């Protein structure tokens, strides 16, 4: 390629897509402390975002994302539908410790358009040990959403279930 032409070649900018590093980092679980009927237990959750709509993104840009979401697109203000496989060590039978949660969550930016701090509010339903329970949650997220804490409360099962999650998230 002649020098002048090579000097003019600008690198590609594409849309986000699942890459191997992304896939591997999605396998990293977020640890949880679960309290159900006064009994504490360890837990963990993984998260996927099938669809997200960003209302913080620049008006000229496409606001929809599927699975791979750039941190600022999420934390500058968005609404996401998420799916979370969840592990809660509340039964001696290992196979009964897994559940599935799905819900919606909205992010509100507080500092640096959400890059430094954002809050989240959400609601979800969880299927766990043959029971379906609704939960409500609030969260705070720092370091571009890499680190966060989620507090959720579910009035069912009887006695209620509190979950405190240290959220680790990579995109």
């Amino acid at each position, binding site marked *: 390629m002649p*020098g*002048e032409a*090579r*000097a*003019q070649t*600008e*690198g*590609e*900018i*594409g*849309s*986000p*897509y699942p*890459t191997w*590093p*992304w896939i591997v*980092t999605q396998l990293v679980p977020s640890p949880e402390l679960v309290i159900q009927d006064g009994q504490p237990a360890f837990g963990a959750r993984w998260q996927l975002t099938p669809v997200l709509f960003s209302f*913080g*993104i*620049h*008006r*000229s*840009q496409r606001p929809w994302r599927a699975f791979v979401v*750039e*941190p*600022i*697109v999420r934390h*500058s203000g968005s609404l996401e539908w998420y799916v979370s496989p969840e592990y809660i060590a509340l039964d001696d039978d290992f196979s009964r410790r897994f559940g599935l949660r799905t819900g919606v969550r909205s992010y509100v*930016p507080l*500092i*640096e*358009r*959400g*890059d*430094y701090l954002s809050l989240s509010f959400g609601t979800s339903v969880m299927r766990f040990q043959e029971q379906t329970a609704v939960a409500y949650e609030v969260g705070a997220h*720092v*370091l*571009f959403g890499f680190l966060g804490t989620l507090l959720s409360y579910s009035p069912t099962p009887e006695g209620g279930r509190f979950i405190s999650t240290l959220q680790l998230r*990579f*995109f």
Partner: protein
Amino acid sequence: MRCARSALALAVVAMMSTMGCRIGQLMTRNLAAFGEERSLPNRITHPERPDARLAVLWVGHATALIQMEDKFILTDPVFTDTIGQLSPRLVEPGIAVENLPPIDAVLISHMHFDHMSLGSLEMLASKVRWLGLPRGGLVYLTDFAFPAREVPWWTSQTLAGGLRVTSVPVQHNGWRYGMDRDWRQGGYTGWVIEYRGMTVYFSGDTALNAERFRATAQRFPSIDLALLPISPIHPRDYMHKMHVDPNEALTAFELLGARWMVPVHYDTFVNSLDEAGEPKRVLLEAMEKRGFDESRVALLEIGEQRVFIER
């Protein structure tokens, strides 16, 4: 085969320890610098210079306020206390945001936290008349009221009053969060600003790519002033692909054929393994060795304003 596998494992472990060690060193330096921000006495409160056709006030890092007659341009504005929450500011900004004049053009070179600071843009928003970004920049800008536009390389925008900005190629990278590097091979740029016969060049961050500097010089043969970074230097084996060191910055200055150079991007944040004061010291040594003096390479202090062309 087993030997090859062992060698590979050893190489991976060695590489990871080296990287981990460097990141650890960098983090330690950053944590030690929290709470150490130095204040500047007698900061300029009225940066408009009626006696100047071309003046520059170095705000710190890659942020410079350029006056070209009645127009003001601000490069990569960062006025926040930290970059990326983990790297604290070592010196307060060279001018307070409230003392800035209305800015005709804010120019962003790339998406890294020390160049596109969303918190700083929030502080400035009411003063910004136009913002230019490299291709792919708008997705990370978020929504501001002021007009913002991506400008691909070798493309110009003529703004109100005839101020003209052109995006020009440099060599760096355009990701922001690390994992986005796979779909963001572009997304960085240098800028040439032209107004009433004066030409200013701002590279943002760049490695030494002689071909690209020559191409810019061919299209803009009379650059008056070049704002060029001189840091980070270390670790050189990693940085040389993305950043010029002081000696290479002088080479870039020569290749661009500019009349004056203002070194920027040093001693404002900890973003490398450079010792405090090292970039400036190495630059002065390189200048002496290569016959440059301060009449051509203007080493400004943070907060200092210099008039290059008088009215």
